């Protein structure tokens, strides 16, 4: 028995060491970028793996100012929040209807929505561009918000439908018997019960829209409308070989997603596994 526990202890320690080493390797690109963002260009070339001689914030400050990242942050925030609001307002009632209400064509409509989930954005981005152009919404934040919300919709409806399907139907029925209309029941009885699903939906939508590259690339032209992703991309092009500044911009761009992740880490993982397991 003691040899067995000893054996298990050794196994535990070796797994632990293996995972730690692997984690260091996996995370090293991020560390490399953070360290490089404190270095001068010469330091990046001559001593790529050592700590910076002076922990100077010059690269971050310069990148922030030269690269106009303040503007990009604001644009990303507007687009992301706008998209999240629309997705939540639209997908929750729709998911609720598919899960709880009986009406003709329920299944057919739902399959139509599922088809949208399979459709890659790349396949329809060309018509979307010309459609927005005819609506006068190319190169506007509104246009990106609407398209982002539209493309996020199929998965969001799917997620909310699964969430509302897990809420017992009896609750809704007893609320309607008490005389509450369907909308009232939805707002005051059902939606509060779907909170975990809603949180997962908001996190998914935040990550998808905040990190998106294709839609801003196609739909935005003028620099003062750029998102962080697009801004970083153009900043990298302009700075060419000024690696120190590029790393500064890269680190600036990664901070918000990492902060959001650290705050919502638990909901992230739970949302991921529940969202995909259904």
């Amino acid at each position, binding site marked *: 028995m003691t040899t067995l526990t000893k054996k298990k202890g050794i196994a535990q320690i070796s797994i632990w060491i293996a995972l730690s080493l692997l*984690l260091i390797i996996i995370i090293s690109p*991020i560390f490399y970028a953070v360290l490089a963002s404190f270095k001068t260009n010469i330091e990046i070339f001559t001593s790529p793996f050592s700590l910076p001689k002076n922990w100077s914030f010059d690269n971050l400050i310069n990148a922030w100012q030269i690269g106009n990242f303040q503007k990009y942050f604001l644009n990303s925030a507007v687009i992301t929040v706008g998209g999240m609001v629309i997705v939540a307002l639209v997908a929750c009632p729709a998911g609720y209807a598919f899960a709880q209400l009986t009406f003709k064509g329920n299944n057919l409509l739902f399959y139509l929505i599922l088809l949208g989930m399979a459709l890659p954005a790349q*396949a*329809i981005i060309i018509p979307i561009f010309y459609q927005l152009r005819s609506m006068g919404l190319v190169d506007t934040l509104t246009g990106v918000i609407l398209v982002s919300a*539209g*493309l996020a919709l*199929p998965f969001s409806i799917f997620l909310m439908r699964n969430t509302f399907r897990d809420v017992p139907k009896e609750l809704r029925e007893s609320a309607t018997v008490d005389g509450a209309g369907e909308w009232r029941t939805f707002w005051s009885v059902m939606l509060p019960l779907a909170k975990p699903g809603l949180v997962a939906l908001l996190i998914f939508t935040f990550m998808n829209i905040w990190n998106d590259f294709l839609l801003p690339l*196609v739909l935005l032209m003028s620099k003062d409308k750029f998102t962080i992703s697009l801004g970083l991309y153009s900043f990298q092009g302009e700075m060419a070989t000024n690696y120190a500044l590029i790393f500064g911009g890269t680190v600036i761009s990664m901070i918000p997603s990492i902060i959001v992740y650290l705050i919502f880490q638990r909901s992230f993982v739970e949302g*991921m*596994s529940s969202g995909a397991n259904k």
Partner: protein
Amino acid sequence: MALFHQEGRIDMYTNESSTIIGNPVLDKERIKTKRRSKVKKTLTALSFLAPALLLYIIFMLYPMLDAVRYSLFDWNGSSTTMNFVGLENYLQLAKDDIFHKALGHNLLWVVLSLVLMVLPTLILAVLISKVKYGKTFFRAGFYLPSVLSLAVVGVLWSKIYDPAMGPINKLLSSIGLGFLAKNWLGEPAFVIPALVIASTWAFYGLYMILFLAGLQNIDYQVYEAADLDGAGPIRKFWHITVPSLRNTMNLVISMVIIHALKGFALIWLMTQGGPFYMSEVVSTYVYKAAFSMNQVSYASAGSVVLGIIVITFTIAFNYYRERSEA
């Protein structure tokens, strides 16, 4: 209750609340009110669905049909007339060497992603699930790359692969392997593998989470029984873990394939399909044709082909999954 949405009188007899049966006058009355309530129900449901359907039609359904429509015409995106050319664009694609190359690269991308992502991620998940202390820490740490935007990943990895200052080449020369240093994104044989490695780094986290969730559902007792039979860890992995995770495995494999077919952002950020089309995939080729060469209808045909491949695969896979899981 469940039969409410069906037509006619059937639900009259099955509905528990209907107590009076057979009285023709009352029957008619009931049918009338029921119809009215059915209309009301549909209208209520519609009020819940309308905004979603509107957005869906404007930004997905209509563009979907439009993509097909564009592909049957000859249009450069700005002229006011469109000439109908039938399947001409598709025939052109069938003869286009670069398009073939792009499709081939998509395929290579799929294969490399499967190799790099599925088994290694599964082994990682198994190791994390075995650890007693710090499980949450490892899970959170290994997931970290997945929260970065693709723009960050693309810029970061193009610097990592940089031939002059990139840490890979620096590391190789510092340990005396300088002759292995390469222009990783500039050489035909290395560019796609290099890109797939960056993409794996950015995406494996989700699959790890899925495997971890799947591993939690395996009955612990099966392992204990295997322990008693004296099975080693490798045998247990192949004979218990892998078969028990079949559903998760199916899901992950299909997601990896779909993802590999859709890949655009990282390639565009790091190589734009270059050098000399060596990393061109369908989506980058289509993007260039549409937005820098004004071949809108030709590009639409390409994107329709991509859409059909992805949708067909998704539907076929889901069909297979439903059958095998039932």
